[in-house]
């Protein structure tokens, strides 16, 4: 067991992939000489060279599209888009090419591309650098979307994603890079199909992903003090969603709260709430609760930013509402 960080886990995953398969290469802005804007790829260019660790110009359309083309032609590229905020520039390539070419070609072509992007708010970097647009990607048939929230997943999802014959988008919440934790020696690739129950409970199911998984776990600790035992699910995969794990839990606890840093309207939380309604309607003792970002572009000052995004106390309050009036 070694104590390490999320970003180190990401780096180790890259090293291993580059070593294992000569078709794997990384391209993106400042992934090479700069060492990665979040220091995730420090040292890789020195080890693997500029052919395999490619710094790109600020051309999201071209380098994401080139990643798709290279994957089409037999390589296994990892394209890093610095953050989801800049990914909108490349949305056409992702939605109109990566997600569709398999289908439009009648199954002739496969695009084994991995796209990684940082996401989320919390560092006072204001509206244009704080988006959580995972729901936009999770909306599109033709791609897989995953959100590693733990060190084991940061370490293990990359290789599984590279092996996948279809495009996989990996969202790394910017606040997680410095997360410290233990990784067992020899921990390797993990599945990217299932949600995980990280904390069993019987009174309410908290469903979260990414940084908000940790906020949900914190909320669970607070709720336990009031003798409400929350079961916490880490979604891990946002497309496809693991309905089975979610419904099994909700049938047991009869209450659910979804925590999602996207804005409430049209959020991933809305999709999950709809699925719970469809599949577990008769098992619910209360409506599904949602804790999402407020309907405001993320503001700069800390107190406003904190108020705009999900927090453990908001999760606790939402859960308590599901239990009716308390004395």
């Amino acid at each position: 067991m070694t104590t390490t960080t999320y970003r180190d886990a990401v780096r180790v995953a890259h090293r291993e992939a580059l070593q294992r398969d000569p078709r794997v290469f990384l391209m993106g802005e400042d992934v090479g000489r700069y060492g990665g804007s979040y220091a995730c790829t420090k040292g890789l260019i020195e080890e693997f060279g500029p052919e395999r660790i490619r710094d790109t110009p600020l051309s999201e359309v071209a380098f994401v599209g080139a990643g798709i083309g290279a994957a089409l032609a037999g390589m296994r590229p990892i394209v890093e888009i610095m953050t989801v905020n800049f990914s909108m520039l490349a949305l056409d390539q992702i939605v109109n090419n990566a997600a569709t070419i398999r289908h439009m070609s009648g199954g002739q072509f496969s695009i084994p591309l991995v796209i990684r992007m940082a996401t989320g708010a919390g560092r006072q970097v204001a509206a244009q650098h704080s988006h959580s647009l995972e729901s936009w990607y999770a909306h599109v048939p033709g791609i897989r979307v995953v959100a590693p929230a733990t060190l084991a997943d940061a370490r293990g999802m990359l290789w599984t994603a590279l092996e996948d014959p279809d495009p996989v988008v990996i969202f790394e919440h910017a606040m997680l890079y410095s997360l410290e934790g233990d990784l067992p020696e020899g921990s390797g690739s993990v599945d990217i199909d299932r949600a995980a129950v990280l904390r069993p409970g019987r009174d309410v199911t908290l469903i979260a992903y990414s940084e908000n998984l940790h906020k949900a776990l914190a909320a669970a600790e607070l709720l336990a003090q009031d003798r409400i035992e929350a079961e916490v699910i880490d979604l891990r995969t946002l497309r496809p969603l693991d309905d089975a794990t979610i419904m099994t839990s909700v049938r047991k606890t009869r209450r659910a709260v979804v925590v999602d840093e996207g804005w409430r309207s049209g959020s991933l939380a809305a999709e999950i709430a709809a699925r719970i309604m469809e599949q577990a309607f008769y098992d619910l003792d209360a409506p599904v609760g949602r804790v999402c970002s407020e309907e405001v572009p993320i503001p700069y000052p800390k107190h406003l930013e904190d108020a705009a995004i999900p927090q453990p106390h908001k999760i606790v309050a939402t859960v308590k509402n599901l239990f009716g009036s308390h004395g």
Partner: protein
Amino acid sequence: MIDHASKVHLDRKHLLRLLREMLRIRRFEERCVELYSGGKIRGFLHLYIGEEANAVGAMQAIGPKDAVVTTYREHGHALARGISARALMAEMFGKMEGTSRGRGGSMHVFDAATRFYGGNAIVAGGMPLAVGIALAAKMRGERNITACFFGDGAVAEGAFHESLNLASLWKLPVLFICENNRYAMGTAIERAQAQIDLTKHAESYAIRAEAVDGMDVVAVEVATHRAADLVRETGEPYFLENRTYRFRAHSMYDPELYRSKAEVEEWKKRDPITLLEAWMRDSNLLHPEDMPKLEAEVAAEIDDAVAFAEAGQWEPVADLCKDVMTVRKVGVLEAAK
């Protein structure tokens, strides 16, 4: 220095082949007009009539191991690349026997066997793909090139500039072929580009470029041979601006309010098929029985393709969600989602 002009053997056999290829595209497109009017082909239909010299001339220099990326006006490229008229027509009808099992239609022709990567409907959307395919070739040490066809409209898109810059910066074997037919849908190039000499755009990215008469199939073939060889030898990109014209509207449903009939008639005088015919006749390389024979062969091939498409099958609705993702068993979750 290779004499590229001499690579092109302008003997009767070769010229007849060029003529046949262009005629084949012309008649195929004309039949599509009829089929579209009759409701057999639906959606959008973008015809290549008048531009045949570009696809036919270029494909003489593009080999089977090379890759081709093109646009939604791709029937000519598909036929010249060797995709069967049957499969192409079936695709236009939406039948399972089509190149994409009917899923793509006129704008999304793909063919793995001929390394034909679409059929891309977003203007300039295919250009980054071409850059990536060339990148893969370079990284794998393969000596093939990627021919990237696009129109004058694409020059305005950011994707064009990013792609040319990246291909030049990373020295990638992309042959950029701009089929400049002077109109981006209904907008004349003078109204869209501050710099209408498109070779200058390429040169600004340190890419060698030349302008070609896109109505002259031999000129196109010679220029493409030269350019393709250079890309192959140097591994660096090249830019051809083929100056051409489409005789019909942007797509079927276009009243062409943006250009005068006189202009169209003027360009029709340089119909690539008529030009080649005349040249061959003048050079005694075209005999009286040649054209009727070619027309008959081409008509028979197209009739056959239409009959094939008519007889084709509709894909069952039950297979609707096929080929969105790869089907595989994964733990408790099965199949594609």
